[in-house]
């Protein structure tokens, strides 16, 4: 139980990403029936709105977790969660633009 609480930010991060991607795909499938001109802004709104809400939820979960658990393993896991959170930034390394 304690280890689950320690890993809570990481688990919440994974769940939020899965929910957000799932919601966006559903929004795309539904709005696509009305045509691409409708699909395009709706998908972006759902995604960006969801991103902000997910960010707020995650911040709250992390804050609560930090208050409740100051153990060494908890800190280590939160540091790992921060790295996981920053992992999309690794895409920057993949660029290979044409001359």
């Amino acid at each position, binding site marked *: 139980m304690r280890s689950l609480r320690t890993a809570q930010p990481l688990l919440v991060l994974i769940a939020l990403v899965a929910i957000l991607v799932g919601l966006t795909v559903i929004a795309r499938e539904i709005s696509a029936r009305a045509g691409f001109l409708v699909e395009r802004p709706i998908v972006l709104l759902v*995604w960006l709105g969801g991103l902000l809400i997910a960010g707020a939820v995650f911040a709250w979960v992390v804050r609560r977790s930090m208050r409740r658990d100051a153990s060494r393993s908890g800190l280590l896991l939160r540091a790992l969660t921060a790295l996981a959170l920053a992992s999309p930034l690794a895409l920057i390394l993949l660029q290979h633009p044409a001359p």
Partner: protein
Amino acid sequence: MLVKRAVAGLMILAGVLTLGYVGISSYIAEELVYEAPKAIVKTPASLGLRFADITFPSRGDRINLKGWLIPGVLPDGRLTADRVIVVVHGTRTNRESPGDHLLELTAALARHGFGVLSFDMRGMGESPPAPLSMGTLEQRDVLGAVDFLRNAPPPFPELGRPRIIGGLGISMGAATMLLAASQEPAIAAVVSDSAYAEVVPLLEREIAKRSIAPIGRVPGGFAPGALVMARLLYGVDFFAARPVAGVARIAPRPLLLIHGTADDYVPMANFRQLDSAATSVPGAHVTTWIVPNARHAQAFKKTGTEYVTRVVAFFDAALGAAA
């Protein structure tokens, strides 16, 4: 306490940077997959040619595309649809494509006895709005054009169905034609003018030239993120727009690759990559024409008659004489 603060700082930094990166990348992706369609001003009639307005579905996803079928004109003035060339325009334009004089090229082919099917790819011209995918989805439009020629009631019933089909594309149209021809043997010969070998490096360079209102010029690092977000948000896989991966499958069908030496949008390296891949298999039948000082997709505009002579000679040899 210090470690706790450091971890908290790391978490805040990671959250802010990731939110910013993903948010801005998503916005760029949304811009990348859409271009307002351009209206068609001139028709083949303005060049003295008969034509029929046609509508046909793309293969697989059945998007109804708009186009023209222009019968070829034989030397004695009779019309023919014996040999039909599917002509594919470039990105952010339409089947008229005044920037590269595509309608004039289309008319020149028709006057040399080739029927022409010219159409607006999805999201462009008069075809319905759709995401721009630089060939990944649009190849279905070319395949739909082939299906139309082979199976739909002919727009000119007296001319019958085409005996043989060729393909000509310019820029993104060329890349799209290569993608389609690599999987459709009914396209008996292909002219590819200014095609890219793969689109991602070009998009990465172009994204870095863009400017977004609050942040100004987009740093190049956002480009991979935008391409991934285009896949996630709109299902547009720019990474699959790689004609170089399939061009060898066009063999033994004849392929003419054209490229301008002054092309600064699709650098000559793309031409070399495509040529190398296309000729890498036994039985490949590849002809190349490097046009000195021609900028991107400007070979016809620059060389005019010579372009038509070379393309007509290529199709005559590949498709046989008109009946």
